[in-house]
């Protein structure tokens, strides 16, 4: 139970962060793809830089989880095709929706009912991928 409270709090803080940093705003995503503002690049770039430093810290200091087990980060499966094609399809949706999955959940609180349709679409897309998976190039 204690662990679930921790997961909830982490999610709660992340949700606030996505909204107040405006990375969940369609307008910010549009502005990013027009290369007219540094904001989004700054958020993602500094998250990666600090993230890299923290991952290095975990690996070099052999940091443990809070309950004392070792931390392993599973490497991504090798490949190119599925990452490039899947990534491009995702990008088309990201720009049209102005939101990726994390922000979609956070936007449920915005009062825009359309976000439910957006999430339903995302579930449908996930489902269709699962059904077609064996027929797609990977």
């Amino acid at each position: 139970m204690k662990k679930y409270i921790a997961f909830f709090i982490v999610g709660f803080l992340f949700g606030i962060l996505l909204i107040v940093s405006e990375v969940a705003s369609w307008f910010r995503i549009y502005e990013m793809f027009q290369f007219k503002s540094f904001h989004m690049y700054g958020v993602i770039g500094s998250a990666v830089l600090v993230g890299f430093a923290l991952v290095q810290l975990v690996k070099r200091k052999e940091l443990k989880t809070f309950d004392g087990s070792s931390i392993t980060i599973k490497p991504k499966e090798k490949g190119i095709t599925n990452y490039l094609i899947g990534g491009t399809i995702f990008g088309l949706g990201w720009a049209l929706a102005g939101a990726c999955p994390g922000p979609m959940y956070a936007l449920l609180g915005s009062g825009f009912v359309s976000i439910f349709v957006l999430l339903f679409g995302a579930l449908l897309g996930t489902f269709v991928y699962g059904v077609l998976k064996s027929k797609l190039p990977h």
Partner: protein
Amino acid sequence: MLNPLPWFIAGPLIAVIMFLLLRLGKTFGMSSNLRTICTMSGAGRFSTFFKTNWRENMWSLVVLIGVVFGGIFAFQVLKVESPQINEDVVNQLKAYGFDSVNSSYLPTELFSLDQILTLKGFALILIAGFLVGFGARYAGGCTSGHAIMGLSNLQRPSLFAVIGFFVGGLIMVHLIFPLIF
């Protein structure tokens, strides 16, 4: 009143979220919840891709619920204001008929109830969601799993995925938007 949180605060804090999840024994990734919800809804009858034990991903659903409540808190309690974006982009969007720019968090021209009740409005939002869900699973992750977690861990596949994210986004905004708006 809090927004926009400057990028040099928001970015590092997102990295801290990822770090906290690592210390909780998990990796950062938001889109896998969509698969879990499909599994819970019985999608395993249609594809073995969904024949997983969703209880193992319970922690991730709890994170998701936290994100939902965080969003509610931000909008209802912190009263976020409308993003103020670059002036050139404002003019460009106004030319497209997006008059809600700088006065709404999301464009009402796409997300308002009136729009979603039109065929075009409904189709655009549904297709947008579909592409995000399909693409994220095809690429094995989304912005959190690849752009943040994967790149932080110097994963080459994540770099390919992120290149794809931007190629797709640029195609949508520069080539497809002029056709649909």
